[in-house]
C-alpha cells in the first residue's frame, strides 16, 4: 500500500512535458494545410465603417481568404455568455480599439500579414466614451444599440445593469463615527504569457475548434448555436492554456475563426499578438464610494457601498463580474446594515471580462482601506478592529447566504503573527493587514469518468482546464488515494469535448471541490464494484466488506485493490468504469442565483518601506494566509497562493492601461505595460494555510486560487500609510503617485514608531 499523497507535494502531472518543451499549446498544434490568419483593425476605438476594399489583399500570392461582415450571415450573428451582443466581426461600426473588421487567411503568416495590410477600410471616427464620467454624461453617445435590450428602461443609457444587495436598515443604524471616501482601481490586463490562440477546421460534417479556453463546453454551446450544428458536431479541443486567469473563460474570436475555416474549407489558425491580446481582455476599472459607520467601540454599524465598474463595449461576462464581485463587498464581518449598489457601465473600450478575483479586488480595496480609516479615527488598532467585527464560524454574515464556513479568526491571527504585528518598526517602514473574501461557485455541474484498467493503472476523464493551477495533479492524487494506484500510472484526459464528459466551467476556484468530488464519486463507484467482486470471489456477503483508500477489508484480512481486481476481471481482462457527477443547483431567489459552495478567505499582511526621495515602495515582507480547508497538494497550494499575491502586487504597484483621447491604449505591449518581474518581488514572501478540513471538497478541501490576490492593495496601501502618513486612494501606487503625495504632505512621517492606536 503506497503512502497517502494527500497533503504532500507530488510532482505536477504534466510537468515533464512542460520542462522539456513538448507540452503542446494551441500555437504549437501541427495541422496539415492550416492557413495562418491575421486580423484587420482600425486605429481608433469607435468608427463608422464606410467601405472595405479587399481586392488588393486578395491578389497577394498565398492569400486564400479575406472575410468581412459582408461575407457572414445577415443579420450578423451575435454571441456572449450573458447577452448575445458581440458580433462575430464588426458590422457597420467598431466599438473598441482593436475590434476586427476583417480577417485574412493565407498559406503563410507573411502572406496573411501582407494581405491584412492591403485591406483598405474607409471609416469615419465617431464620438466615443472611455471613462465613467464620459459614459454617464446624459449627452454621451450610446455604446450599445438599445434594440439589443428591448423593454429595458436603462437601454437609453450606458448603464448596462444595476445590482442591489441590502440588509438591515442603514438610515436607522446608529453610528458614532462615519468615514466616507472614494477609491479607484485601474484597468489592468491579464497578460498570460501565452497570447490567445485559436484554430478551426471543418470536421466530420461539423467543426473542430482549438482554443486555449477555460470553458470548452460553453464555447461548444455557443458555436453550435452560431453555426446551427448539433453539439455532437462541434468538437472543442482545449490544450492546456499557458496561463488564463479568467481572460480565457469565454469565446472571443473563436466564432470568427470558425466561420473563416468553413468559408475557406480548410483549417485556419489565428494567434493573437500580445498587443491584440491586451486589446481582447482586461479587468473592469472601478470607482468605489464607501461610507462606513462605526460605533465608538469599533463595531461596524453599517456599510454603504456604491461601485461603478467601467466595462467595455460588449458585455462578455462583465456584468456577472460586477454583480458577484460587489456582492460580498461588506467583507467577512458581521455588519448589521449593508447597502451595496453596483453598476455595469458600458464604454468604447475592450470588453472587460473575468479576471482572478472576479470583481472582488476592486471593492475590497476600498472597503478594507476604509476600515483602516475608521480605526485611525477611533484610535483602535487595525488588527483589533477586524477581530471585533469578524464573523465567527456559522455566523450568517451575509444573511441569505452560506454562513461563515471557517475559523477565520485563526487566519487573521496567524497573518498578524507572521508579520509581527505591533512590533516596533524601522524608520520609513509601515505595516498593513487586510482580509479578503470571495464567494465561491454558486452553481456547478461536473461529470467525470474514471477507468480502472486491468493492470491497476487509471485513466481519468475530467473536463476541467489545467491552466497552471494543477487540476490534473489533484484529480490524479484523488484517484491514487482511492484506488491505490501509483501516481505515475494515472493518466488524466482533458480538453476534448468529443471524448471527455461535460463540465460546466473552470472558474471561481471550483475545480478541486466540484470536479474533485466528481472524480471521488467515480472512484467510489469503482470501489463498490470491487466490493461486489470481492464478495463473489470470497463467497462472503458484501455487507462484510469495505473498500476504502485502495484497501479491501474482508473479515479478518486486508487485500490490495489489485488483488481483487485481477481475479475479479478474470481471463478476458477488461476494466472497471466509474462515473461521477457533482451538481450544485442554483436558487432563483438568491441575489447571485445560488449560495456560495464555499468562501475563499485570505488575510494578507505587508511590511513596506517607502523611499521618500523617489516614492518607490519596496515590500520587505509579504504574508499571505488562506483558509483552504485541506491542501491536497501543499506545494501547488503555495504556488497558487504566491502567484496570486504577486499578481496582486502588479495592480497594486505598477499595472494600469493608459488611454489616449481616441480610446487607444497608449501602453500597449510588454515594453510599456509592466508586470512584476524577479526584480519587483517582496524581499520575503511567506505563504501559509489554515487547514481544518472544513471545506465541501474531497478530504475537506476548499477552493483557493484567487484569495491571495483579493486584499493585496489594501494591505500594501495601509503599510505605505503607516510608513509615510499619506493615504492614497487611487491605484496603482506608482513611485510618481507616491512621490507626489509625499510632496503634498511635506515634512516627514514615521520616524520609527508605529501608528496603531493613533487617533
Amino acid at each position, binding site marked *: 500500500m503506497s503512502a497517502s499523497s494527500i497533503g504532500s507535494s507530488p510532482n505536477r502531472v504534466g510537468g515533464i512535458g512542460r520542462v522539456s518543451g513538448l507540452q503542446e499549446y494551441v500555437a504549437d498544434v501541427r495541422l496539415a494545410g492550416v492557413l495562418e490568419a491575421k486580423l484587420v483593425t482600425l486605429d481608433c476605438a469607435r468608427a463608422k465603417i464606410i467601405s472595405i476594399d479587399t481586392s488588393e489583399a486578395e491578389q497577394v500570392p498565398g492569400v486564400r481568404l479575406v472575410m468581412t461582415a459582408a461575407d457572414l450571415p445577415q443579420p450578423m450573428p451575435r454571441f456572449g455568455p450573458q447577452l448575445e451582443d458581440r458580433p462575430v466581426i464588426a458590422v457597420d461600426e467598431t466599438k473598441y480599439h482593436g475590434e476586427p473588421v476583417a480577417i485574412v487567411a493565407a498559406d503563410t503568416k507573411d502572406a496573411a500579414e501582407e494581405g491584412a495590410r492591403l485591406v483598405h477600410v474607409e471609416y469615419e471616427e465617431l464620438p466615443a466614451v472611455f471613462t465613467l464620467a464620459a459614459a454617464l454624461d446624459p449627452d454621451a453617445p450610446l455604446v450599445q444599440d438599445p434594440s439589443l435590450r428591448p423593454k429595458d428602461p436603462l437601454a437609453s443609457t450606458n448603464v448596462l445593469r444595476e445590482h442591489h444587495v441590502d440588509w438591515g436598515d442603514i438610515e436607522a443604524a446608529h453610528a458614532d463615527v462615519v468615514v466616507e471616501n472614494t477609491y479607484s482601481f485601474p484597468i489592468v490586463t491579464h497578460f498570460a504569457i501565452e497570447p490567445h490562440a485559436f484554430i478551426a477546421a471543418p470536421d466530420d460534417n461539423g467543426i473542430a475548434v482549438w482554443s486555449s479556453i477555460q470553458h470548452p463546453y460553453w464555447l461548444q454551446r455557443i458555436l453550435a448555436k452560431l453555426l446551427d450544428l448539433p453539439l455532437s458536431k462541434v468538437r472543442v479541443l482545449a490544450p492546456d492554456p499557458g496561463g488564463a*486567469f479568467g481572460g480565457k473563460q469565454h469565446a472571443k474570436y473563436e466564432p470568427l475563426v470558425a466561420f473563416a475555416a468553413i468559408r475557406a474549407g480548410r483549417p485556419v489558425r489565428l494567434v493573437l499578438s500580445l498587443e491584440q491580446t491586451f486589446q481582447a481582455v482586461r479587468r473592469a476599472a472601478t470607482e468605489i464610494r464607501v461610507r462606513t459607520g462605526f460605533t465608538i467601540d469599533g463595531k461596524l454599524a453599517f456599510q454603504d457601498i456604491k461601485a461603478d465598474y467601467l466595462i467595455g463595449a460588449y458585455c462578455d461576462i462583465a456584468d456577472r463580474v460586477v454583480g458577484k464581485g460587489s456582492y460580498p463587498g461588506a467583507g467577512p464581518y458581521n455588519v448589521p446594515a449593508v447597502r451595496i449598489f453596483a453598476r455595469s457601465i458600458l464604454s468604447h473600450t475592450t470588453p472587460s471580462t473575468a479576471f482572478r478575483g472576479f470583481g472582488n479586488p476592486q471593492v475590497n480595496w476600498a472597503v478594507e482601506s476604509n476600515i483602516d480609516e475608521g480605526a485611525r479615527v477611533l484610535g483602535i488598532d487595525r488588527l483589533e478592529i477586524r477581530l471585533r467585527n469578524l464573523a465567527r464560524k456559522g455566523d450568517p454574515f451575509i444573511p441569505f447566504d452560506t454562513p461563515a464556513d471557517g475559523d477565520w479568526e485563526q487566519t487573521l491571527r496567524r497573518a498578524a503573527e507572521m508579520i509581527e504585528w505591533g512590533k516596533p518598526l524601522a524608520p520609513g517602514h509601515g505595516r498593513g493587514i487586510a482580509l479578503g473574501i470571495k464567494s465561491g461557485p454558486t452553481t456547478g455541474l461536473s461529470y467525470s469518468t474514471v477507468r480502472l484498467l486491468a493492470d491497476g493503472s487509471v485513466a481519468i476523464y475530467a473536463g476541467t482546464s489545467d491552466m497552471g493551477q494543477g487540476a490534473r495533479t489533484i484529480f490524479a492524487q484523488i484517484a491514487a488515494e482511492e484506488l491505490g494506484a501509483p501516481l505515475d500510472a494515472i493518466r488524466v484526459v482533458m480538453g476534448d469535448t468529443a471524448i471527455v464528459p461535460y463540465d460546466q466551467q473552470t472558474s471561481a476556484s471550483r475545480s478541486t471541490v466540484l470536479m474533485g468530488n466528481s472524480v471521488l464519486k467515480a472512484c467510489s463507484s469503482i470501489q463498490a464494484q470491487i466490493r461486489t467482486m470481492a464478495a463473489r470471489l470470497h463467497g462472503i456477503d458484501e455487507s462484510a466488506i469495505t473498500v476504502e483508500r485502495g484497501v479491501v477489508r474482508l473479515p479478518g484480512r486486508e487485500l490490495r485493490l489489485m488483488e481483487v481486481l485481477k481475479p475479479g476481471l478474470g481471463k478476458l481482462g477488461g476494466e472497471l468504469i466509474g462515473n461521477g457527477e457533482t451538481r450544485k443547483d442554483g436558487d432563483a431567489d438568491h441575489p447571485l442565483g445560488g449560495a456560495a459552495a464555499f468562501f475563499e478567505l485570505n488575510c494578507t499582511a505587508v511590511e513596506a518601506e517607502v523611499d521618500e526621495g523617489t516614492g518607490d515602495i519596496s515590500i520587505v515582507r509579504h504574508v499571505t494566509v488562506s483558509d483552504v480547508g485541506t491542501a491536497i497538494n501543499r506545494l501547488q497550494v503555495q504556488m497558487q497562493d504566491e502567484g496570486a499575491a504577486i499578481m496582486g502586487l502588479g495592480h497594486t504597484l505598477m499595472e494600469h492601461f493608459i488611454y489616449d483621447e481616441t480610446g487607444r491604449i497608449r501602453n500597449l505591449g*510588454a515594453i510599456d505595460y509592466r508586470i512584476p518581474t524577479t526584480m519587483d518581488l517582496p524581499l520575503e514572501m511567506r505563504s501559509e494555510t489554515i487547514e481544518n478540513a472544513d471545506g465541501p471538497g474531497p478530504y475537506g478541501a476548499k477552493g483557493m486560487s484567487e484569495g491571495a490576490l483579493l486584499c493585496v492593495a489594501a494591505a500594501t496601501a495601509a503599510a505605505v500609510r503607516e510608513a509615510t502618513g499619506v493615504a492614497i486612494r487611487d491605484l496603482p501606487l506608482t513611485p510618481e503617485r507616491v512621490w507626489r503625495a509625499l510632496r503634498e504632505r511635506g515634512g516627514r512621517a514615521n520616524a520609527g514608531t508605529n501608528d496603531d492606536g493613533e487617533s
Partner: protein
Amino acid sequence: MSGVIKTLPIEITVNGRRRTLEVAVHHTLLDVLREDLELTGTKECCLVGECGACTVMVDGRIVDSCLMLAVEADGAEILTVEGLARDGHLNPLQQAFLDKGAVQCGFCTPGQLMAAQALLVENPHPNVAEVQEGLAGNLCRCGCYYQIFEAVLSVAEAGSR
C-alpha cells in the same frame, strides 16, 4: 514586403544537429525554430525582447530569439529547451524545476530554463540576488519566481558538492 520574399541559405547547429536551411531574410531565429524546424518548445509572446519566453542559447550566450534574425545566427550553435534532456533523462535544472514547483502553466518555462542554464554556465555558484538579476528578463505571470530561484540555487549547490 510585396513580391518575392528574399531568402538566404544558413547553416546552424541546433541541439547538436547540423541544419542547412534556406530562410527568409526577415524571419527571426524564433520563426525559424518554431516554423521551419518545428521546434515549438521555444515560445512566442511579446516579440519585443521583454518577456523572455523565446530565450535560447546561441554560442553559449542567452538570446531572445525573437530579436535575432535567423541569418544572423548563420554558423552558430544553438541550444533550445528540446536539447536540455539527454537520452530521455531530464537535465538537473529541468528536474529541479519539477521538484521545486517552478512550473505552473509552463508557458514561460522553456525560456526560464534556458536563461537559468546560461546563468549557471556563466556563474556556476550564483547567490539569490544574482539569480534574480539573471532571470530579470523572464516574466512568469503565474508567479513561480521564488520556486524558480530555489530550483536554480539547488542545482548550483548540488554542482558545488
